[in-house]
Structures are given as C-alpha cells and as structure tokens.
C-alpha cells in the first residue's frame, strides 16, 4: 500500500511523556497486516515502551528482515530511521549499523521464519558476538507472508491447514539464545500488554544482546487444525476453492494473568496455548537452571513467559572491540586519515 501520511494534531488532553511527546509521535504509518494479527499488538507494545521510556524516536534505529513481522517497523516509530533488509539477515545489518554509531538504540524485529529458518546462523552469531540490541521475534510458527508454511519453531507433529504434518524438531529460540550467550532472554505473548511492555522496556535498557521471543498468533494461517466452531463456513469455502480466498476479520487475542500463573489462551482456530508466567521465586541469573526450566515446562506442554535469563555487566561488542566513545560515523577526517609522515615511515619499512 502506498504510505498514507496522517495529520498529527495534538489534543491538549492527550498524555505526553517527559519529552512532551504523545503516543502519536511514536506511531508509524497505517499497518497493512491482517486485522487481528498479533504483530500489530507487538508494534503497539514497542510504541508504548518507547513512549514510557521517554526515548526520542529519532535516536532509535529499527531493523528487520522479510516477512509480515519484518514489515512492522514501518508501522511504529515513524520518526526513526528503518531498514527492511533481506530475509534472515537483519542481525548482520543491525550489527554493522551498531558499529557505525554506538549512540543509537538498535531494535531488530524478525519473524520465526526469518530467524529460526533462513536466519538461524545470523541470529546465533549476532548473539554470541554480544551486539547491544533488542532482538524481538514475532513468533507465529508459520511463514505468514508466503501463506502459511511451517517455520522451524512449529511444534513437531503440528498439522497445517492443507494437512501437512511437521516432522522436524521445533527450535526453542529462547533456549537457544540462552545457550548462545544472550545476556537478556525473555518470552511473552503479543496480547499480554502488561507483561510485554515492561519486558521490552527492560530489554531496551539492557546493555548487550537482549532477546525476546514473542508468541504472536497468525490469524490467517494457524498451524493447529483445531475443532473450530465459528469458522466452519469460511473454512469449507476456502477448502473448496483450494485457496486462502477469504480471510475473515478477527480481533486480536489478548491475555492477562499474574506471575506464577498458567493461562490457557484460545486461538481463533480453536486450538490453545498454555502460557506459564514466571513467578517471583525464580532465579533469573541461573543459566543452567533457566534452560532446564524451559525444557521441563515444554515437556509438560507449557510455554514459559517472562524474563527468563538475565546477566548484567557482561559488556557488549562495543566494549569488546574497545571502540572510542565518539560514534565511528562521526569521526573527523583528521581522526581517520593518518598523517603523511606515518606513511613515510611505512614506506621506509618496506624497502
């Protein structure tokens, strides 16, 4: 869709943050995702987080790969520069951007296809390299933009609309991130604003690679063939014409539950997710324990949400590379080009 500029007028009663900015100032252009798509809820959460942290939008850089999820940076923070790169390669582009200017905040948005399938290598290496970023995966278990094939986070045994069964082991990105050296690993659900917004805020404030695996239901291509009641009619139609011809408008799915609790979230196709929110007694600094917890709950059919692992003071790539404080893209010619006298010395050493 061609970008539609919106009039931005500030109503006097609209809440402003410390910068005097309103929610509007953190919006992007109108979303072109399906009505009810979880990704749009994530965009909203990102806007809220930035608003609440009083971040000037232009000090944030938004990077993404390709996919419905990767489109979202267009739909939030219109005042930020953004880069919708190529499929699965957001992490390297973000890494380069981060090296060029250590002063901005780098927000990477990806999908489960973008990250766990084609991008698995870059995901892993950007994390083990310690890039200072928020890396958020809007995880729906399918390739939305290419119409609903399994991604690598789809559960083994899951069934597609068209009847295909997934026989590959699922990748748990949060567990992977912990193993690979992420120093902040969280998981949430797109519809759980109360959990997601603070989690994003904490990730932004974290120094080092912060990874968030955000479950985000795809309303067009769900990967569980549930016992749907209300949508029988539509399903029959689509089956008969052998295409996803008609996509009914749906409401976003929300969740609201407390630390330590389990909530069963029902998806539009009738299937459900068991979300378990991390409780107060959880030790967020125990790497081995965190991993074991994730895996044990997963064996029990539950998805752990919350801040799963945190390690402060491990530094980041800028520190590892011992970079000067001035962003590299702002160094003056004199700081970059050595004097000709230095070259003469080098010449002398080459004779």
């Amino acid at each position, binding site marked *: 869709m061609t970008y539609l500029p919106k009039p931005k007028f500030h109503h006097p009663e609209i809440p402003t943050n410390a910068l005097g900015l309103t929610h509007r100032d953190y919006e992007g252009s109108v979303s072109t995702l399906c009505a009810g798509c979880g990704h749009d809820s994530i965009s909203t959460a990102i806007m809220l987080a930035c608003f609440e942290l009083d971040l000037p939008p232009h000090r944030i850089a938004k990077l993404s790969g390709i996919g419905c999820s990767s489109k979202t940076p267009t739909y939030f923070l219109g005042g930020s520069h953004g880069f919708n790169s190529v499929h699965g390669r957001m992490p390297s582009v973000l890494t380069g951007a981060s090296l*060029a200017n250590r002063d901005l905040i780098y927000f990477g948005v990806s999908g489960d296809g973008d990250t766990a399938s084609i991008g698995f290598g870059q995901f892993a290496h950007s994390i083990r390299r310690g890039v200072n970023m928020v890396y958020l995966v809007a995880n729906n278990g399918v390739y939305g933009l290419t119409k609903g094939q399994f991604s690598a986070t789809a559960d083994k045994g899951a069934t597609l609309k068209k009847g295909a069964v997934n026989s590959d082991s699922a990748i748990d990105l949060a567990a992977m991130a912990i193993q690979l050296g992420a120093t902040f690993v969280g998981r949430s659900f797109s519809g759980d604003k109360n959990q997601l917004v603070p989690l994003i805020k904490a990730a932004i404030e974290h120094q080092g690679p912060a990874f968030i695996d955000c479950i985000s239901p795809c309303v067009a291509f769900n990967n569980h063939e549930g016992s749907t009641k209300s949508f029988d009619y539509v399903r029959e139609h689509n089956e008969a014409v052998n295409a996803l011809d008609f996509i009914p408008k749906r409401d976003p799915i929300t969740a609201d539950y407390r630390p330590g609790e389990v909530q069963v979230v029902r998806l539009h196709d009738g299937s459900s997710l068991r979300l378990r929110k991390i409780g107060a007694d959880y030790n967020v600094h125990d790497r081995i324990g965190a991993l074991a917890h994730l895996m044990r709950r997963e064996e029990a059919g539950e998805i752990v949400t919350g801040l799963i692992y945190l390690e402060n003071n491990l530094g980041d790539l800028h520190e590892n590379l011992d970079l000067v404080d001035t962003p590299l893209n702002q160094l003056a010619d004199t700081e970059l080009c050595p004097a000709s006298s230095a070259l003469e010395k080098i010449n002398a050493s080459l004779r």
Partner: protein
Amino acid sequence: MPIESVNDFVVRFANVNGSGSASANQMFARAILRMGVPVATRNIFPSNIQGLPTWYEVRVSGHGWLGARGGTDLMVAMNPQTWDKDVAAIEPGGYLFYDSSRPISASKLREDVTVIGVPLTEICNREYKDPRQRQLFKNIICIGALLALLDMEVSVVEALLDEQFRGKENLISANHKALHIGKDWARANLACPIGLRVARSDAVGDRIFVEGNTAAALGAVYGGATVCAWYPLTPSTSLAEAFTFYCKRLRTDPATKKHRFAIVQAEDELASIGIVIGAGWNGARAFTATSGPGISLMQEFLGLAYFAEIPAVIFNVQRGGPSTGMPTRTQQSDILSCAWASHGDTKHILIFPRDPGEAFEFGAIAFDLADRLQTPVFVMLDLDIGMNHSLVAPFTWDDARKLDRGKVVTHDDLEAGRDFGRYLDVDGDGIPYRTYPGTHPTRGAYFARGTTRDAYARYTEEGGPYIENMHRLLRKFETAKSYVPGPVVQPAVRATRTGAIHYGSTAAAMDEAFVLLRDAGIDVDVLRVRAFPFSNDVVDFIAGHDRVLVVEQNRDAQLRTLLIAENAIDPHKLVPVLHFDGSPITARFIAQAIGALILEALQAQEERNLS
C-alpha cells in the same frame, strides 16, 4: 652453453611448505633489491598448510620488468616430490642447484644444464643437533651458497638478518653463522660465480616492496574506513589482517588507547557484507575483503545495496574459478559476477588496480566513490597482485585531502526546511541525497528497503515510480563515469590501427610485451581500463582502431563481454587474448599471442589483396 647474464635471469626455489623456506627465499630477493637491482617475485603455493610443493620465483630484472617472465634459469631444487618436473623446467643452458647429500643418478639430471650440488643436509647434520634447527638453517645455508654463486654482497643479507631478528640476538648470530657456512662452502668447493650474476645497480631507487593486499588495506586506513567485516578466504585473508595491523598502529586514540575502527571476523560472507551494508547505511565507511566464492554468497545483499543505494566497498582478491577451483592460483574471472551482481537489472562499479601502488590509491578512492555514488564499489584485485610483493613507487598522501562523503543532508539542512526525499533526483545526476539515522528529531527519517518505493522512500507497487527509479539508477551509473579512474593509454611509436586493452595485474606483463612488440617492429596502442563503467575515452579508443585485442586472465573473455554489451561495440573488433591456467600472465605469452594474431591478419590481408 651455460647461460651468461648479469641482472637478468629467473631463479626458482622448489620447496615444501611449512619448512621455513619462505622467509629465507624472500630474504634472498630482498638482498637483490638492496643491491639496487629490481626483482619480481611470485609465490606458487598449494592449498594446504604443511608438506606439499611450493615454488618461489625470483625474476632478477635490471630493466625493471615486474611481470612473470616464464622459464627458469636457475632452479634451486629442494623438493624431491617435484624433482623431475623441476629439472625439466630449466631453460637449456640453465643451472640446477640441489642438495647433494644423497647421490642422484645421472638419469635424473640433464646434460644441457650446469648441475651444482651442495651437501646441505650433510652440512646441517654436522653443524646442528636439533632437527628443527637443522631444517631452519638449511634454508639459510642454501642462501649463503647462492650468494657466493651469484656474486652477491654478503653484507646486504647480514643487514637484512639483523633487521629481521632485531632484539633476538641469539637468532641473529645463529643466522649469520649459517649464512657464512653456506657461502664459505660454496666458495671453497664450487666455481663462483656462475654465469648468472647480480651486480650492484641503482635501478630500484626509493621504491618500496610490498604486497597488494597490504597496500589496499593501508589505502582503506587512509580512505577513512572504520568498519571491516570479513571471513577468511584465500587470497583475501591477508588484506583484512593487514588492515587490523595498521589500524592498531594508526587508528588507536593516542589518549585513551581506544579504537577508531571496528573489525569483525564474521561467521561467513553473507554476514560480512550484511555488516558492511548496515554500517554504510548508518554513515560509516565500511568494507569487506573476499574472493570468488564470497562474491557468489554476497549476491543477494549486493542487489539490496544497489537498489537501496547503500555505500559499500568490496575488495575482491580474485583467484582461479569456478567453484572452489584453484584457490591458490590467480585469475581475473569474477568480472561479470561483480559487474552484474545479483538477480534483476543491476550494474556495479568496478575499479581495477594494476599493482600494490594502485591498490593503495584505489583502496582509498573506493570509499569516496562509494559515498559519492551510494552504491557498492568493487576493488578488483587478484592473487597475483594481492599476495605477491611487488616493487612500486612509495605511497603518498596529501595531508590536505578531504574525504568526499557525498550527498548527506545534515541536521541544519533539515532544520532550515529543506525538502528531503531519499530517492529524489535533485541535481539531475541520478544521485539522491541521504540522511544518517538519528540526524533530526522530526525530519529526515526514511525507511530503507529492497522493495520498490517512490522518491520519498514510500513503499509502492506502481509501475510508474518503479520505472522512474530504475532510469534514475541508470543516470547515476552514467554519472559514475566522471568519478571513477579513467583509462591509461600507452601509444605505439608509430600510428597504428591495432589496439590492445588490458586491466589489473596484466599491466606488468603488458608493459614488457609492449616493448617486446615494439622491438619486433609491431605497433600496438595500449589502453589500460581502470574502471567500469567505461569512460568515453575507452569507447573512443576502440573506435579509433580497426581491431582491438582484449587481454585478460579468464576463459570467457569477461571484460570483452562487458565492453561489447555496455558500449554497443562490434564483437568482431575485439579479439580475445586469454591466459587462464592460474599462473600470472607473461610478456612472452602476450607478445607471442598478439604477434601471431597480427601476422595472421597481415597474411589474410595479403591474400585478400592478391585475390
């Protein structure tokens, strides 16, 4: 008759890699340079680490020819694995130097070469106990003997040893000793000198002896590169390593000791170019160094950089293709995969340095070009330039020189209300303006992407804006012609209708071939292409000749394809002269090929005239 020659011959060392011969042989070459006599050296090495054959070729050339010559006058045959082949390679009348510790049957030798046996192993076993010392010093003893045989100045090598091992006194004295053992043995037991001799001269001047990869890396330092992302790949690895080396020395903040550079050894070539593009988008000067397989892997990203218009510099140190091919041999066979990199319609800037001198120069210019033209720029090196030391004029840098950052809209421009459209052709030259991320609180932000968009960087799927944008990119490419290095022409002594075009590492051999041909009475105007897009001078040059030979180091005449496709040149006019066996092209090859073609043409002409 044994060959007699002063300052004009080829010595070839046949060794096994990992045996310590490389440094000794290089010292030998340096010693000749220190005597004021130009040398051209080439390393022919295997794709492994230890135990396989390796050769080091030292062409001593008082005339100063720096290309490979072909043939061997003195073979230092230290590798039993390749003995037969090495002996066979000696020119008639040449010399064979070998380790005579164990007897060699006459059938393994040749009658028409002078055989020089030195019992190197025997001497080493006598002088040293430690097997590793025996091996290491054998190389130095060998050099000692060669000094005597070629009448070289011992003090020059001693000085080199002193410099090399400065601070390691025990190594200095031990090496000196080995050197003298070899020299003394030769003087005592052999007729010294032989017919080949090095005589002090002053033909080297203040020139420096440096590898192209080192030079290019230094160019990148001076060119203001701050971000380097790379993945090891022969023969490009030493470029990134040299950049690291020089940055540490030249780019460390004197006060804080912190780094004004970021070097990332990425996990592969896709990540390398991704990092470069991310950094380029964000306003840093960034590059990667790679070779053919890396170029193949980078194709998708290169298309993104072309279309989203992101500056990026790629040093492509070409090697023998296709596929893994000949990883330790030289070729110029990535011309098309770089010029038209990626799917869809694309055109990329290539620049072709001829030697380490231009590698330095272009290594710096590349970053100005990339920023100015907002697109990837390929510096097309090859293994021959990159990994061999060559003699070039000392590097120079004008302290007043400013980096050209291209069209960047600043905070103040935006504040002043300037209209900003990322892909607007404001100046009519096809080059748009850009902003760095974070420039201004409310203006200048845009979304970079690989999909089509309008001049204000807004996504659109409409045909009109797409076509407009694609045409603007062509305009920009046209503009590039006025920025890239122009061709260099070497006119023949007499007016001629025959021309020759070449580029890159072919230059050294071409210079010499030009003289060989001239001396044989064959006139050829020579043009060296230094960049793609080709400037009008290249087109005019071709138009000004009836026939133009295009000399390249690949099978499919790739530059010729680029010339005819991009400039509507009749292929019949462009005659391919191709050398692609992985060894560097020689003047002999060029002169013979061109000579034969010209002869053929003359005969055909005559026949036509007769009939």
